[in-house]
């Protein structure tokens, strides 16, 4: 019965995340759609809700941020005035913006790299099917259900120089660890919290990739005399490239925005702006300093940046092999 209902099993290449890749750059073969029914009215009725929703709350805001970036908007509805590229000139000439951008880039390199590395090692270990691996797998996914803002409240206490786990170190070497004052320490705490929160999703994707590697390949390699370590390097890692690529794409965009909850509860951009990433700067410029035009302009710049990054990554994806 199962076979009757699902004759085409999900082959690896047809999984949603790969289709995401396939659709953004439509050069891979597309799956044949059924396209059976006709009827304009019912078609419109089915697609209208989602189009209204994304039109209203996605496309209009995106359009507005670009639109506003050319206007000087007064807070509290004081009218607006067309200023051309002046907002851009102001933002791009602001050293604050560039240091926030630099910190964002640094964060985007370090946090996803570590989160994916840790998840990969964990997935390789759990995939060996040892005793207790089911429980470990279940627990490792828990942080997915914990909001960044609520774990931030916990982490800020754990890393507190006087109350947290490092208080004994601080008692011996005063001032060695103090994220309240030291910018680097604060940055490290955000990175650790981000890794904690980022493990589950990467872990699920990588583990599912490992599980699709056919047994026959492993057996053949073992027959040829490849030991388990050798098989990780020569079989499992190369066959995991698509999943690794996917995690990098998702993490890359994800870390830009996900860090907000952590920053807001742990450091609020401080000390001395050391953890003031672009996403937090936009929030504080827009909602605390009421610089709507400036915030909109930075939103527009970040939007362009993310779009270019995602498209570049999918260009890079050409080198990823999907065939098994």
């Amino acid at each position, binding site marked *: 019965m199962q076979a009757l*209902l699902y004759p085409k099993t999900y082959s690896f290449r*047809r*999984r949603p995340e790969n289709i995401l890749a396939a*659709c*953004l750059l439509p050069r891979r073969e597309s799956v*044949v*759609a*059924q*396209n*059976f*029914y*006709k009827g304009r009215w019912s078609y419109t009725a*089915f*697609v209208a*809700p*989602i*189009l209204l*929703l*994304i039109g*209203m709350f*996605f496309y*209009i*805001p995106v359009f507005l*941020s670009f639109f506003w970036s050319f206007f000087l908007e007064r807070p509290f509805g004081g009218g607006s005035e067309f200023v051309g590229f002046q907002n851009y000139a102001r933002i791009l000439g602001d050293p604050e913006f560039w240091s926030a951008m630099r910190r964002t880039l640094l964060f985007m390199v370090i946090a996803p790299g570590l989160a994916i590395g840790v998840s990969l090692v964990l997935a390789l*270990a*759990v995939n*060996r099917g*040892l005793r207790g*691996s089911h429980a*470990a797998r279940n*627990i490792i*996914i828990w942080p*997915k259900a*914990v*909001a960044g803002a*609520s774990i931030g*409240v916990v982490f800020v*206490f*754990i890393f507190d120089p006087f*109350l*947290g*786990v490092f208080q004994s170190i601080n008692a011996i070497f005063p001032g060695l660890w103090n994220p309240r004052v030291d910018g680097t320490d604060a940055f490290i705490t955000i990175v650790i919290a981000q890794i*904690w929160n980022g493990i589950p999703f990467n872990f699920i994707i990588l583990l*599912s990739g490992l599980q699709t590697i056919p047994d026959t390949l*492993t057996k053949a390699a073992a027959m040829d005399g490849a030991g*388990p*370590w050798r098989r990780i390097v020569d079989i499992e890692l190369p066959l995991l490239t698509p999943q690794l690529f996917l995690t990098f794409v998702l993490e890359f*965009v994800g870390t*830009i*925005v996900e860090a907000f*909850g952590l920053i*807001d*509860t742990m450091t609020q951009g401080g000390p001395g702006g050391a953890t003031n990433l672009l*996403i937090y700067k936009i*929030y504080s410029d827009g*909602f605390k300093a009421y610089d*709507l035009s400036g*915030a909109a302009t930075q*939103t527009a710049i970040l939007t362009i940046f*993310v779009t270019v990054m995602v498209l570049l990554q999918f260009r890079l994806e050409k080198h990823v092999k999907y065939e098994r």
Partner: protein
Amino acid sequence: MIERSNSIQRVAAFVMVIGTIFILAPLVIAFLTASRSYEEFVQAGGIEFSVGSHFVANIREILFETELPRQLINSFVISLLVAFIKCSFAFLATFALVFYQSRLNTLIFALTIATVMLPLELIVITTYQVVANVAMPLNWLLSILGIANLSEWIFGWRPEFQLSLLDTYIGVAAPIATSCTSVFIYRQFFLSLPQDLPKAATMDGAGPIRFMIDILLPLSWTPLVATFMFWFIGGWTSYLWPLVAASTPDAQPAIVGLAKMANADDETIPNVPLLMAGALFVSFIPVLLIAFMQRQIVQGLNLSEK
């Protein structure tokens, strides 16, 4: 495995244990700290690795003396709305995209995909302005079409509509629900069904709507339930948007309430045990969901083969 190799098994077991400890440590520390009273905590001067006796008292304080219980209900309603909108809208649209013949299919699919690329947090400034007055597009339309000027000229009244959804459940939930990842998941699932399914339904006299309700919906139960729970958790854990869209404590979800509680504390030594109890309190529903329904969620999202 194929051959017994002790070295790698031992390393794998070690890695697994370390990983599990890393994941559990913050939760355990939060629980241990939540089990002490404020006085005990101040006296001990920080973290202590033993279970105290004040956990129930702290939870009672959270329940009866803070706004968190009310905000927990807000979280619940908002997350349900997010999950419902995401699943139902995407299900309807994907049904049309896969089973209908239309030249618009590719365009609409591309429009929905693009929402996945830019997270809501990026465009939060302008989304706020839209939600603060959802009649804004209507006002634009009226002034572009000249109706606004016409009306001003004839009636001496310029139509300006104003409808704010800030501080409402739907206003908080709708923008979170714009990311259309479900469309991919359902599309993949629909395409994996037998091609002749709609044809067979038509032969038996069922139209497209009957086909959708009586055949497609029961078949799609697994991915629907999985995505519903996944988006529920996603709605629950979102922070930046609810923070700006809900300004009054009555409308805020629990995560925002907890963060406000943490940031508002200006004592020399904040009441950390109470905060830890709060952090556990706002997280237990989604964590239980992911701990007990994990197989359904992971399988239904088709992220895992086994």
